[in-house]
């Protein structure tokens, strides 16, 4: 039984960013004829056990593992004498700590090296497949799953990493978990879950030229806030979402957690099937046909009810950047740094005051006047091939501005190889940017790629938290296209400004 705010899925002609929620409560599960949302269909198909007064036990189809959030979980298994129940549904990679230069040398930082070596030992001891540094399957955990065809519609996917929401782009139910839950999944291939509520974010109309998936998700987060999706699975819908490529959809779902939602989903369609067909782990032959038939059923029924709905008009969107220290503090690039006094809510006002102080910004400064020291392109948000093509497209025939350093870090070794086959690396290097090896890199600065105190970046990553890219560093979240244009001028810039 679920009682909550409701809104109907079928709607027309809505104004921009309307928070749609009717006041009267509906008891959903007691109305047998009522349709289900995409999230509910996937969730229900994975319930192993349901009992009154207890959380559901949910089966997990794919468990992704990396070196940072797993060592204590494997230790827990060892202490209890438990095996990994389904190593064949588990895959590991090295991403957070890995350097993006000199891959053939040992990792210089002994603590990082120990963590990576611990993962290698754990995978070997427990029979888990690992893609180590140097392996052509290595890369950021959320880039390699889709790339290998391991992420498929209708699956449940978890990882000890909040950006697991990325995989929801395929119509999978994918969410981040903590280390205790990592151990639980390793031991049982299940997780106790209380069924989350559902929320629709519908983006009507077409994205204007020059507006990308990253601009869209930054605008959505600014609209609903960093807590707006808490307790919910978000389903992204509408013409603008349907028109996105798989890579754009991954960018959108990736940052669901930045709006507070553990999971974001997009219903699978021809774009999804086209992406998956022929990938190493995708079904083949008769299995493919059966899979597509099932996947096609994975859409929200017309009479299904979401607990909450938000509608956004794509036509009003422009390139979007953040000015503050949480991902909800963003504005169109054409705007200026806001005056904290302009916020009615005292909590938001105080947060803005603190953010401006940390970011070294003054109210009223046009965002286009903000000069950066570093540009970072990469991460599970924007480290895929289309992102690198967008960057190379802007950099072609141009130079990175004097005094600006630009790092371009592919999301995986295969992305890197493909980019090199397409000649993108040559364009990027010729512009003066640094072409690096695959990994999480400056998104969270666990490897040597980091900002120094006071240094300012334009970054295609997902978090502008204080110190995220290095202690004292200042981060502006941007799209790959804006990152490249910013590198050329040294100030926050859209390609159309060049």
């Amino acid at each position, binding site marked *: 039984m679920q009682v909550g705010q409701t809104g109907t899925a079928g709607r027309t002609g809505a104004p921009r960013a309307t928070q749609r929620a009717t006041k009267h409560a509906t008891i959903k599960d007691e109305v047998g004829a009522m349709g289900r949302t995409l999230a509910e269909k996937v969730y229900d198909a994975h319930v192993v056990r349901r009992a009154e007064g207890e959380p559901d036990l949910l089966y997990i189809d794919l468990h992704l593992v990396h070196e940072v959030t797993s060592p204590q979980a494997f230790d827990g298994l060892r202490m209890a004498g438990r095996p990994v129940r389904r190593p064949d549904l588990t895959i590991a990679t090295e991403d957070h700590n890995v350097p993006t230069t000199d891959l053939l040398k040992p990792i210089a930082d002994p603590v990082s090296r*120990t963590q990576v070596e611990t993962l290698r030992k754990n995978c070997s001891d427990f029979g888990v497949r690992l893609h180590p540094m140097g392996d052509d399957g290595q890369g950021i955990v959320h880039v390699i799953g889709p790339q290998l065809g391991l992420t498929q519609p209708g699956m449940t996917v978890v990882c000890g990493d909040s950006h697991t929401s990325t995989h929801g782009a395929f119509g999978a139910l994918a969410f981040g978990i903590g280390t205790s839950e990592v151990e639980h999944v390793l031991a049982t291939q299940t997780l106790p879950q209380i069924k989350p509520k559902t929320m629709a974010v519908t983006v009507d109309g077409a994205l204007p030229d020059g507006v990308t998936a990253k601009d869209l998700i930054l605008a959505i987060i600014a609209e609903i806030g960093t807590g707006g999706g*808490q307790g919910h699975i978000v389903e992204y819908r509408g013409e603008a979402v349907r028109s996105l490529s798989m890579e754009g959809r991954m960018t959108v779902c990736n940052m669901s957690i*930045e709006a507070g939602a553990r999971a974001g989903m997009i219903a699978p369609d021809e774009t999804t099937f086209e992406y998956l067909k022929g990938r190493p782990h995708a079904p083949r032959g008769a299995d493919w046909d059966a899979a597509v038939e099932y996947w096609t059923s994975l859409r929200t029924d017309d009479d299904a009810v979401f607990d909450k709905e938000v509608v956004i008009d794509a036509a009003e969107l422009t390139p979007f950047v953040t000015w503050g220290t949480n991902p909800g503090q963003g504005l169109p690039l054409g705007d200026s740094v806001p005056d904290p006094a302009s916020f009615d809510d005292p909590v938001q006002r105080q947060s803005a005051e603190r953010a401006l102080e940390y970011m070294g910004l003054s109210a009223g400064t046009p965002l286009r006047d903000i000069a950066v020291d570093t540009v970072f392109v990469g991460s599970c948000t924007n480290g895929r091939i289309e992102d690198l093509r967008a960057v190379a497209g802007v950099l072609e025939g141009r130079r990175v501005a004097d005094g600006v350093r630009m790092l371009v870090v592919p999301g995986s070794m295969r992305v890197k190889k493909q980019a090199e086959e397409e000649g993108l690396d040559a364009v990027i290097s010729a512009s003066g940017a640094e072409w690096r090896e695959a990994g999480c890199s400056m998104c969270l600065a666990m490897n040597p790629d980091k900002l120094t105190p006071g240094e300012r970046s334009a970054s295609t990553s997902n978090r502008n938290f204080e110190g995220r890219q290095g202690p004292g560093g200042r981060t502006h979240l941007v799209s790959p296209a804006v990152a490249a244009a910013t590198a050329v001028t040294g100030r926050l810039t859209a390609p159309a400004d060049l």
Partner: protein
Amino acid sequence: MEAFTTYSGRAVPLRRSNVDTDQIIPAVWLKQVSRTGFDKGLFSAWREDPEFVLNQPQYEGAGVLVAGPDFGTGSSREHAVWALQQYGFRVVIAPRFGDIFRNNSTKMGLLPVVLTGEQVEELQTAVEKDPALEVTVDLEKREVRWDGRTAAFEIDDYTRWRLLEGLDDIGLTLRHADAINDYEAGRTPWLPVTL
């Protein structure tokens, strides 16, 4: 997991919203492979400021952290919970929590308590006025008490029971191994495998 029934002791007011887990424990601390030693990393960037609330001697030894909305947003790092616990916190009170942080807390026995923004503000003000104020967090009765005030909070029955008993999920789940076996037997054959 450490059982939780009732905690009585001092509280610390943290007047900040959106305290993300990168602030609670910066990434440099995540490189360790053990479960201990994270207390030193708790709010390590903010603790460099002598004015930061945890550096003020009147709040030493407090077991309750009272923070603004959206506490524990961002990264899934359970290290944030370990750091808070190892520093000495048993309870975090806030108007809203990040979902993953709240979940991680209840797996470890750190109690996340949701009170309204007004109640949190009132409690913070009371603690600032009298840092020695005794705050009681009673999980059995689902209420927070201080200075003659009582504020009720919600927590689902199952999580409350697990916390009161200090039970780990894995042992509870393995009681249902038959149900897992049955489910696995009916899984679609074309689902991907990694080996």
